[in-house]
């Protein structure tokens, strides 16, 4: 049908007036250009009405206000061109190697979007087999320290590499004497560069150039002893996994002695009582160490008795008799064990006295351990400190007779030399002093030039930590600052290379060349992929020859032992807040060093308890006229007549810029300051109290006198015994475990119930249920953890790994003192009391006294118990949250929805394990935490794991069982359309554990390790009788010793059933 209707816009269109036709084509009628409008003469005469004015005013104010409200500009840099190997959201792992002059390990570095954020041990390659320590894991934080030097410095001012290099090269060529003082160099390439330098400067037989190796903590005594017995200054390899009997005299080999990253792994393989055999470990020491706390038998000795213990054992093995002290019983047990295990034993001594090491060698030789547990050929290259040379140099410098050019690489002698203060004075008179150092530290700040080295994670390095064990460290990020590899600096100064700038390949090429000479060229790609390679070494050509025993420590009054703490070590990483806040495995004290003393000896003079408000008493320790004042910590197991003080504290005494976290902070933020206005260091430096004869001695005679006043102490644990409770820690002996039924040592809790006939019968706790079970069993996953208390050595690696993985805030000393550390994972350390036969086993239920049970025994046995969220299937936290912010996942996880949390803390109160942590403040922004929390620093924030939320104030947090890793693992498996393999998923803590004490996995996978562990005879659940049905299992601690009292108690328990 034809459209007949017509519509017109107006009468004009209908009529088709000429006007209309004219304007028809024009879209906008009466268009007037801006120029025309402004040119209008009448415009100036027009006035704005009052109402218009108010409108404009209102609009302007509103517009200005809105503009001021603009959110800060945040830059997002998109990958317009996607970098190779970087997929946003996906981690990239690099195999690398860690060496800082003291610790060594093959590591895996996790990077996200080009940022290294997590370090774990490399379990597949390298002789450390996944072993790490807290320092290695925490070292990733150092990369993002904003006080790391960004440029080379000349005379304390920022300079350029060209200027600095020219000046140093000129000084070297013009000098009569050039000395390179470095820490132990294990890098084949740096060794080669130094050798080249020596050749160039010394020519044939000259003495212009000298290289001296010096470590803050020396093992020279051991090397000298081996020189006397084997003719070479070597340190052999030890294999604790082959030793059925381990006798350690003062060697903290699991934590700080020699090569703990390797030893802990070896040791861990023999601490599981379910294996073929379990090692028997004897420890004789003064300060209760991590190693001592794991010993089956521990004897308390003074440092001066170390030789006597070794001599006594030697005599006993030879059928002779020798004088013995209070440690005789322990020594006799050791003798009996050694007689049985003979060459399958190992004896180690921690002393730096040549004589003590000679005795240890003698004992090892008698036992025949050389060739079985001790390998002289595959010797350890770490710790080559030449005490005599270093001390002579220090004395020369102090006397103003130092070399004209002194290059110091990786050392901090002003801090760590016994005569550091005098050395510092002399250092100023040296014409050209150069420090290759990342910080303007105690030594570097006094040097003419500072040439900042790359952080390890930015650097190409190579290593030969043991003869034949080659490894490289590769950069995981482009250098953040204008720094340069130490190797490159040496080459440049030697005229062998020129600076390559930020993307320099100098070190890479040089290292590649080193390895090309070592092995076929193809190896280097393999090497960088796996980080290490093994080259066969010639079999040992060493034979033991007896040598006269020399340099034995002498007894005199109170003896002080200078030891290292696992977290702070020699103090090089004292600016790392993760490490400062890592509780000492034994004392649980953070952010301080102190005098350790046996509480029995403290009675009447010093307070033996402490809490948030009541600090510790102070005492003054005087050694050779030098003194230090520190709080006195009551440490059970400290040998009577001795005290201990940790090295590595008191860094930056003159306010050197070594990192914000290296100083004490005030209650409301900011650094505490000393009288001279400089920030107050943490703890006190006791390197100055060391003395040296042939070698540096780490023990001395001291006088101790109480000082007026108390000192607040920040400890994460203020109660030290388990109060005889048998449901938290379970301990037994190897013979009970081997010979008796489960009920003897791992009796399940039973409750009374009525059976069908109305009789009272006992039934296991699992039969009682208030709630319907969560439907997780046999449906999908159910994640669980097993922790072996026998294997756990308490080192704290898991704790730092958790902190690193989960963005756990650092809260600083004042908050730790208040009991508010945020660690999701903690390691409870229990001392046995005299009321207990073992930790958690009451000697006699009738006479048990709670008062006495609070006091640890004189030389207590120790249990370390890692504790995190137990992910209870009947979680008491979940029922009490008013807003359902914490709920149960269908995979058995107890999960926290931070966004939903309103912060009533009811969940934390109702948690039997007390693992929940509350955000008391806004840690990422509140001023109190500026100095300590890396999340408050633009650079430090880069260490945060992008997969884990940074929590705000007022919300509860806790272990999530690394749910972000679970999800990632599931995603990978899903993409590949397969089920998750057992062992594919690991939490940060299980990744970090050097002894594999922590096993995680899917409990619903019937063949999984966790399932097997949870059903094993040693498995129990802490506080089982509370009925919360946790997804965490513990494995009974088994000690390889005789304990007749415990035998009796557990036999009675068994007979009861």
């Amino acid at each position, binding site marked *: 049908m034809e459209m007949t209707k017509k519509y017109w816009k107006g009468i004009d269109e209908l009529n088709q007036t000429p006007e209309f036709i004219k304007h028809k084509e024009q879209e906008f009628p009466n268009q007037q250009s801006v120029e025309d409008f402004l040119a209008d003469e009448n415009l100036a005469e027009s006035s704005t009405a009052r109402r218009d004015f108010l409108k404009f005013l209102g609009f302007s104010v509103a517009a200005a206000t809105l503009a001021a409200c603009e959110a800060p500009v945040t830059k997002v840099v998109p990958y317009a061109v996607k970098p190779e190997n970087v997929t946003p959201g996906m981690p990239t792992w690099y195999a690398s190697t860690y060496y800082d002059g003291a610790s060594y390990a093959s590591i895996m570095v996790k990077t996200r979007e080009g940022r290294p954020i997590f370090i774990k041990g490399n379990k597949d390659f390298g002789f450390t087999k996944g072993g790490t320590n807290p320092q290695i894991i925490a070292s990733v934080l150092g990369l993002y320290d904003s006080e790391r030097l960004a440029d080379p410095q000349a005379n304390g001012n920022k300079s350029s590499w060209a200027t600095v290099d020219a000046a140093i090269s000129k000084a070297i060529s013009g000098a009569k004497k050039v000395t390179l003082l470095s820490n132990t160099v294990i890098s084949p390439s740096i060794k080669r560069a130094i050798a080249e330098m020596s050749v160039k400067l010394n020519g044939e037989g000259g003495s212009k150039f000298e290289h001296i190796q010096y470590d803050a903590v020396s093992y020279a005594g051991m090397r000298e002893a081996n020189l006397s017995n084997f003719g070479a200054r070597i340190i052999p390899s030890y294999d604790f996994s082959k030793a059925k009997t381990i006798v350690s005299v003062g060697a903290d080999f699991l934590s700080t002695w020699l090569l703990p990253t390797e030893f802990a792994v070896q040791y861990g393989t023999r601490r599981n009582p379910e294996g073929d055999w379990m090692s028997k470990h004897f420890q004789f020491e003064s300060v209760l160490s991590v190693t001592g706390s794991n010993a089956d038998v521990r004897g308390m000795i003074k440092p001066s008795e170390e030789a006597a213990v070794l001599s006594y054992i030697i005599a006993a093995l030879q059928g002779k008799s020798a004088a013995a002290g209070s440690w005789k019983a322990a020594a006799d047990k050791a003798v009996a064990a050694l007689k049985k295990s003979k060459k399958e034993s190992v004896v180690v001594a921690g002393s730096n006295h040549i004589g003590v090491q000679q005795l240890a060698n003698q004992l090892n030789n008698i036992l025949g351990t050389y060739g079985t547990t001790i390998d002289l050929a595959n010797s350890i290259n770490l710790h080559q400190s030449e005490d005599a040379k270093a001390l002579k140099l220090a004395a020369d410098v102090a006397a103003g007779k130092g070399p004209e050019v002194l290059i110091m690489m990786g050392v901090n002698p002003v801090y760590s030399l016994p005569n550091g203060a005098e050395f510092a004075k002399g250092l100023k008179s040296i014409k050209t002093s150069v420090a290759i150092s990342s910080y303007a530290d105690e030594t570097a700040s006094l040097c003419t030039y500072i040439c900042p080295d790359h952080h390890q994670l930015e650097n190409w390095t190579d290593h030969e930590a043991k003869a034949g064990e080659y490894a490289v460290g590769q950069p995981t990020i482009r250098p953040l600052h204008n720094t340069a590899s130490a190797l490159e600096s040496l080459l440049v100064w030697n005229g062998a290379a020129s600076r390559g700038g930020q993307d320099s390949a100098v070190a890479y090429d040089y290292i590649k060349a080193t390895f090309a000479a070592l092995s076929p060229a193809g190896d280097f790609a393999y090497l960088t992929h796996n980080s290490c390679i093994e080259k066969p070494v010639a079999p040992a050509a060493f034979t033991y020859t007896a040598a006269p025993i020399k340099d034995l420590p002498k007894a005199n009054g109170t003896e002080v032992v200078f030891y290292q703490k696992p977290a702070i070590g020699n103090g090089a990483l004292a600016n790392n807040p993760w490490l400062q806040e890592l509780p000492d495995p034994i004392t649980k004290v953070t952010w301080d060093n102190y005098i350790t003393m046996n509480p029995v000896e403290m009675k009447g003079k010093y307070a033996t308890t402490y*809490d*948030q*408000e009541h600090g510790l008493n102070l005492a003054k320790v005087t050694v050779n006229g030098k003194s230090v004042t520190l709080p006195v910590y009551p440490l059970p197991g400290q040998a009577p007549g001795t005290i201990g003080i940790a090295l590595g504290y008191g860094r930056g005494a003159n306010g050197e810029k070594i990192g914000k976290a290296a100083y004490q902070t005030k209650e409301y933020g900011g650094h505490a300051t000393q009288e001279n206005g400089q920030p107050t260091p943490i703890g006190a430096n006791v390197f100055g109290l060391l003395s040296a004869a042939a070698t540096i001695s780490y023990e001395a005679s001291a006088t101790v006198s109480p000082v007026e006043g108390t000192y607040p102490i920040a400890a994460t*644990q*203020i*109660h*030290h*015994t*388990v*109060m005889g*409770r048998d*449901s*938290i820690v379970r301990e037994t002996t190897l013979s009970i475990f081997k010979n008796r039924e489960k009920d003897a040592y791992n009796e399940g809790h039973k409750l009374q119930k009525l059976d069908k006939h109305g009789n009272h019968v006992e039934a296991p706790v699992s039969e009682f249920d208030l709630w319907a079970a969560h439907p997780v069993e046999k449906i999908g996953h159910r994640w669980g953890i097993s922790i072996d208390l026998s294997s756990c050595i308490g080192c704290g690696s898991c704790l730092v790994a958790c902190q690193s993985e989960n963005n756990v805030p650092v809260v600083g000393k004042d*908050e730790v003192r*208040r*009991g*508010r*550390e945020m660690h999701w994972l*903690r390691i*409870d*350390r*229990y001392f046995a009391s005299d009321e207990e036969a073992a930790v958690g086993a009451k000697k006699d239920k009738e006479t048990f006294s*709670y*008062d006495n049970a609070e006091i640890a025994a004189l030389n207590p046995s120790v249990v370390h*118990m890692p*504790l995190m969220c137990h992910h209870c299937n009947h979680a*008491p936290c979940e*029922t*009490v*949250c*008013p*807003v*359902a912010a914490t709920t149960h996942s269908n995979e058995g996880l107890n999960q926290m929805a931070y966004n*939903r*949390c*309103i*912060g*009533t*803390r*009811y969940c*934390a*109160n109702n948690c*039997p*394990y*007390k693992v*929940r*942590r*509350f*955000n*008391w*403040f*806004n840690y990422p922004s*509140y001023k109190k935490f500026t100095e300590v929390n890396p999340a408050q620093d633009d650079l430090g924030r880069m260490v945060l794991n992008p997969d884990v939320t940074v929590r705000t*104030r*007022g*919300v509860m947090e806790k272990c999530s069982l690394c749910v972000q890793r679970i999800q990632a693992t599931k995603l990978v498996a899903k993409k590949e359309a397969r089920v998750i393999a057992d062992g594919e998923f690991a939490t940060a803590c299980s990744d970090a554990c050097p002894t594999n004490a922590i096993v995680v996995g899917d409990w619903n996978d019937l063949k999984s390790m966790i399932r097997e562990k949870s059903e094993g005879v040693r498995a129990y659940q*802490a*506080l089982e009788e*509370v009925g*919360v049905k946790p997804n965490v299992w513990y494995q009974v601690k088994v000690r390889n010793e005789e304990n007749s009292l415990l035998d009796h108690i557990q036999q009675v328990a068994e007979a009861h059933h």
Partner: protein
Amino acid sequence: MQKEAAIREPLILGHKTYHDVTEDVCRPIEDKAPKMWYILFGIALVIGLYGVGSIMYLLGTGIGVWGLNKTIGWAWDITNFVWWVGIGHAGTLISAVLLLFRQKWRMAINRSAEAMTIFAVFMAGTFPLIHMGRLWVGYWVMPIPNQFGSLWVNFNSPLLWDVFAISTYLSVSLVFWYIGLIPDFATIRDRAKKPLAKKMYSILSFGWSGRAKHWNRFELVSLVLAGLATPLVFSVHSIVSFDFATSVIPGWHTTIFPPYFVAGAVFSGFAMVQTLLLIMRKAMGLEAYIHTKHVEYMNIVIMVTGSIVGTAYITELFISWYSGVEYESYAFINRATGPYWWAYWSMMTCNVISPQLMWIRRLRRSLLFTFFISIVVNIGMWFERYVIIVTSIHRDYIPAAWSMHFPSHIDIAVYLGTIGLFFVFFLLFARYFPVLALNEVKTILKGSGQSYKESPDYHKHH
């Protein structure tokens, strides 16, 4: 001469006429306030504002300004909450339960007791709010429709029950109190001379005209509200006790808690009423209306509830031993002999021993002694909550996590601040509201018969 049975002590002393009652109650409102009122008000206001400032600081900085820690998640906050809720129990008990039991003596004290209840519940309600880490999202405890993926509250949580219990209690108490005030406001309105006051009281009195119909409805509503409020007296503190009773913490996980808490609440509430009224009767010249007899009655309540509380304490001790549960028995050994022994024994002395002195008639009729004991009881009841909360969680299951609690100055300031604010409210009440239910009191005034008996005429004829 006719024999008359020995009668009870009169509830109103002296020869008060209806007009006297009106005068006595209205005078303080109509007169200029005495200097003392301004001084007290000033002190209370300063303390209250200090508390408010501390709360602001707390909200601005974080819960960390209190002395809590990883082990002790509640301490003074919830102690104060339970303490104030407990105090807030007397009012409703007096007005509702005693009304149902036709205890006429309640009429002299119910108004101020109810006011005290409301102000105490205000103070109590502050603590669950400010103890939250994120107060600004505190409304999530309300089961209101929302767009967060329609998140619902957790009905399993006793804290949620608290929300309902406290808010119900507060609203019913408030309505009950206000209903009672209406006729009295009308009286003041009718007497008011200043236009502003007249206007204000006229609004407050809701157009009350005193007709029989009004009175009839008034009585009915009072009775209905009394019926509603009576179960609340028992439910509120029962539910508050569930916060602890339903938990797994030794020392909290106790089935005896509901009756024990209710008895304790009445105990502390009456003590607070005593403290306030003994001052008020003197300050406001109400000796004729609130006198020894009232005090004695209240002391008897204190004695009875105190004995219940004492029995509960001892029962708890017995059960902890009898249960054979290691943690449970240790929790009580620790209370009595552990680091907080002083708090436990303060509680025992104040709450168990002191009310027993009320068996002595001379003491329970002594106003000075009563005043002293009323303060002692509230100190004891504060310690009771502190002992229950802190000494249970400071040493629970895992000894490595054991800790101590030390209050910060903000803890103390917030607590004192609520006491200050409470008195600010109470002093304003005493100044502007009829402190006695004047129209109700008139119903128990011995009328003309008594006056006649005491008049010279009466004696002339007999």
